[in-house]
């Protein structure tokens, strides 16, 4: 595995329709060599379709895919040098773990096929890599979900792929195993340094594991950035709402300022265009102060505490909406308190976005 040179992937203007439904609607993406990239989005956003097109398991209606400048669409899935890990593992159920991992080596054309001793050595090496060498003689049905996932990965790596693609790699696992495998995948990636893309609908997973995150919705890319960028500087209303917990308030933007429920708020417009809009604030970016302070006023209805924070439900006096805010516990809040709220950071997006 050492010595294989990472590949850069470029996707240009990919369109893929299933009947009238556009799964991908003009997608452009560049993946640098050696990168660990997450495709993040809700179900139906087109992320898995994009992954399958890169792998050669689906074909786009139009657009281009290149690996290091070479046209990948001219090659079939088996000739692209892509290791694919399926969401439900897709292990060969009638073969042992050993034979599953050896499969890619055994089906090679005779001219390049390794001899039996070298195949055995290679499979052993891979099973050591995923720390499951002791399971070689078992069948997939005898393994736990986490073990199957790692065997699926070992099988994909057996063919010495140039690119590793993972479809919802931790989707079917329970929370604890998931956390372990995340760290393990990160460690593995830094060890083998292979260009890797994984699909997930779990923002925490994407932000924690990937170098860069691609946020997708309805067949389009909403934003590409590092985990910090997509969280701190969401490019669209969708990204702000999808990543992290946000308070969303329907507001009107006029020349003079921002209005909520007909009342003017003491907030800068920040360049948002006039018209019906939505104000996005992270829960923990809402600063709690004494009554009369801040842009918003409200009455605390309920308070729950989670470790270092207290989560309060506050009914806003402007339009009676109830919002949830996260406040530090330095000043205990109580139901019935009247508080002033000031967004430390906020974004205003037009309502139609």
């Amino acid at each position: 595995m050492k010595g294989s040179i990472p590949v850069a992937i470029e996707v240009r203007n990919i369109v893929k329709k299933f009947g009238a439904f556009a799964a991908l609607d003009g997608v452009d993406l560049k993946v640098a060599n050696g990168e660990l990239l997450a495709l993040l989005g809700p179900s139906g956003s087109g992320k898995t379709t994009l992954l399958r097109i890169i792998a050669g398991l689906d074909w786009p209606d139009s657009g281009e895919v290149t690996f290091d400048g070479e046209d990948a669409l001219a090659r079939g899935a088996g000739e692209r040098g892509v290791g694919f890990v399926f969401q439900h593992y897709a292990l060969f159920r009638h073969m042992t773990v050993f034979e599953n991992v050896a499969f890619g080596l055994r089906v090679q054309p005779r001219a390049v096929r390794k001899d039996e001793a070298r195949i055995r050595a290679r499979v052993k090496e891979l099973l050591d890599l995923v720390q499951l060498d002791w399971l070689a003689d078992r069948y997939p049905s005898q393994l736990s979900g986490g073990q199957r996932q790692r065997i699926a990965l070992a099988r994909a790596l057996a063919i010495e792929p140039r690119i590793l693609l993972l479809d919802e790699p931790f989707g079917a696992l329970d929370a604890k195993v998931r956390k372990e495998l995340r760290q393990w995948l990160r460690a593995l990636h830094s060890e083998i340094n292979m260009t890797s893309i994984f699909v997930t609908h779990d923002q925490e997973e994407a932000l924690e594991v990937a170098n860069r995150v691609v946020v997708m919705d309805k067949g389009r890319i909403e934003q590409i950035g590092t985990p910090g960028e997509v969280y701190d500087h969401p490019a669209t209303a969708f990204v702000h709402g999808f990543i992290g917990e946000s308070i969303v308030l329907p507001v009107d933007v006029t020349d003079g300022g921002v209005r909520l429920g007909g009342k003017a708020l003491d907030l800068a417009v920040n360049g948002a265009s006039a018209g019906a809009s939505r104000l996005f604030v992270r829960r923990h970016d809402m600063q709690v102060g004494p009554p009369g302070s801040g842009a918003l006023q409200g009455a605390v209805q309920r308070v729950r505490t989670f470790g270092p924070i207290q989560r309060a439900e506050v009914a806003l006096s402007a339009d009676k909406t109830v919002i949830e805010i996260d406040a530090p516990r330095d000043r205990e809040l109580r139901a019935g308190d009247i508080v002033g709220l000031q967004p430390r950071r906020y974004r205003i997006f037009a309502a139609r976005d």
Partner: protein
Amino acid sequence: MTFEMSLQPIRTAGPDEAASALPLYAAREDLRTEPGPIRFVIIAIAVMFITVFVVLPLVVVFAQAFSKGIGAYFSALSDPEALSAIRLTLWVAVISVSLNLVFGLVAAWAIAKFDFRGKTLLISLIDLPFSVSPVIAGLVFVLLFGAQGYWGPWLQSHNVHVLFAVPGITLATVFVTFPFVARALIPLMQEQGTQEEEAAISLGASGLQTFFRVTLPNIKWGVLYGVLLCNARAMGEFGAVSVVSGHIRGETNTMPLQVEILYNEYQFVAAFAIASLLAMLALITLVAKTILERHLDEGQHSRGD
């Protein structure tokens, strides 16, 4: 549900209360099922029905076949006409099972792994031979290949014999047996989906390698199951074959046809001797079917996550 509920009182009772409650439960009638006499009657009806309509006829077949002794039995079977019927039946079964194996695999593959227009129609058409009377199936071939049929004159002028010959018998048998393999495989392949095949392809396997190393091993028990039922029907088919065979002795009589002819001629021992072979085929099929179903079930269970 009922099981849970009946246990509830014991579970919730305190330790000493439970001890006194237990004998009470044991003494009482088990309310989850019917009273003993009714159960007995239901089981007795089922057993009697099977005995009268299945076991008894089977016993009669063998009793009649051996009624004149073992010598008569074997001489009936070694009669040239009987041997010819056995040969023809085996021959027709081999051809039609092979054809239907290929057809069934292709049809199941198409239906389970691709989406295309007219798929529902294809699925219903596969079942047609089950719903159409075999005699009609035979007549269709007479209409197509008979002397007054569509292709009959052309075939005759080229000296090709379909009707009243082996090709006609085989065609009729293929027609009535073609759903078996496809029917056994379609649900199996639909359930298995295409992920393992996709995995094989992405690992560099060719189409043939994928089929022989991944698809076929996954469906092998289903294939054997379909072949077994297909074979049983192919050897036992009477109606369709009777229409197209022409009943030429020693040439176009299959075993079921030979049984009928001998019976009509009052040669009961000979008729039942051949019938006993068919009955044995049925018994072997039954045992094999049970074994295969066990394998299919196991496959099903080992699949779950």
